[in-house]
């Protein structure tokens, strides 16, 4: 967290700079099945973030050394397009992307019924086309919908959501300024039906009580996002194959 401290992020009326309430999400739109060549795909707009996810597979896992005898591996690549941020991102190797890809992959392996596909691989490609704070969560949400669109069996739809802290107040779903100048960020991946957590990161400064409040906001928001995800999948299948 930047934590510059001298930037005002809350207005006199207690609302946030963009007019949202403390526990209010940015608007979310989701569309499933947008990439004709993929086995499953999704487009998620969350605030000004845009993430697209594609699923290819299950397919044979190779090289053989990545194969698991009793389950499939989920091979996730999270990537930010060069034009997705204010300063251009150079394509290629990137430590941040590698870390996010790793933990996202592990989170998805925790919800997919991997035992169904021994020795297989499922490729999940997450591309961030536009970034405005919280892209790893938006990517998780997109990947979940794409996996469902591909017909991959899952224990639950994994929902990506984050809360944070600005000016000593816990708030839901940081936007760009709040992320840059705020005090903490707590992105999680929630299974809304089971109430379990498959993805967890956090940085900044949170007291135990603040952490609990932030988690409460996250669970509440996950339920809301879950409905939008389900709705997108319904529209996709009611609309028939495209």
């Amino acid at each position, binding site marked *: 967290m930047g934590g510059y401290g001298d930037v005002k992020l809350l207005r006199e009326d207690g609302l946030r700079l963009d007019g949202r309430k403390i526990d209010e999400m940015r608007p979310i739109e989701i569309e499933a099945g947008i990439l004709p*060549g993929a086995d499953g795909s999704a487009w998620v707009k969350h605030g000004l973030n*845009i993430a697209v996810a594609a699923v290819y597979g299950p397919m044979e896992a190779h090289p053989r050394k990545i194969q698991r005898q009793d389950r499939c591996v989920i091979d996730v690549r999270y990537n930010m*397009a*060069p*034009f*997705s941020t204010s300063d*251009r991102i150079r*394509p290629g190797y990137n430590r941040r992307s590698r870390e996010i890809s790793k933990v996202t992959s592990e989170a998805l392996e925790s919800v997919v019924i991997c035992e169904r596909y021994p020795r297989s691989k499922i490729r999940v490609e997450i591309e961030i086309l*536009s970034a*405005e704070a919280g892209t790893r969560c938006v990517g998780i949400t997109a990947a979940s919908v794409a996996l469902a669109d591909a017909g991959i069996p899952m224990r639950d739809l994994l929902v990506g959501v984050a809360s944070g802290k600005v000016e000593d107040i816990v708030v839901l779903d940081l936007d760009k300024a709040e992320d840059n100048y705020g005090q903490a960020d707590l992105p999680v991946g929630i299974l809304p039906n089971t109430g379990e957590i498959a993805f967890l990161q956090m940085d900044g400064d949170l007291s135990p009580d603040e952490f609990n409040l932030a988690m409460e906001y996250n669970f509440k928001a996950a339920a809301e996002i879950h409905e939008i995800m389900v709705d997108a999948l319904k529209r996709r299948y009611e609309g028939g194959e495209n």
Partner: protein
Amino acid sequence: MVALVPTLLRQELARLAESGARLDGRGQWEARDIVLETDCLYNGEGSAKVVWGDTIIYAGVKFEMRTPWPDRPNQGSLMCSAELRPIAGRKYEPGPPSPESIELGRVVDRGIRESGCIDMEKLCIVPGEKVWGVMIDIHVLSDQGNMFDACALAAIAALRTAIVPAERFDVGEDYTLKVKSTPIMASFTRVGGRYVFDPSAEEELGGDERIHITLGDEGHLHSLQKGLKGVFTPEEFAEIFDVAQSRCVDLRKLVANQEGN
């Protein structure tokens, strides 16, 4: 459609070609539906999305401030590059840039650069000290045939809507980038023995060499590239060159219409 195995597919394409037909019913020089949208990415200083049949391309323009090359102190620079990441299709693999993606970026780059549509001297801020570097990045979300033309279209459309972010860099007010012309690429692939315009994914799978032609506003050639295995005669080239002239005019209108919106 289930992909036919290549040999069968080639036979089928040859059979269709004899009667002047194509797999999806199009005419030899007919394009699929094309939807062009610009200004579609929050952080791109210029941006475009092209949905060309089932091929989906995004292009974004970013500016950076840099010191000019010592031998060209009054000139900025332009760079177009393409990423062909594994999202683009089942056959694309992760790893360092493939020869395919390098060729794609460089062919689109040459068409735009050589058309002279950007005056490099207009990108100079302080001679010898500060110039603009213009970066066009092409991102292929779905390759379902004729990726080159779709990428070139997205690139020039994004460039033509770009705003120079002078304020963010503390060198004056933002202004629209001046782009003097609209270079357009038209590509042809040999399918079933004869060339077609705008091949589908199946036609590319069962086809041979392809020729990429970039034409400027006046119909001049700015870039040519022959790719993949195969040869052609000057007469064959003359035929597709004529088609390219008219297809480029059509596509250029698409860009102009979008700007008119």
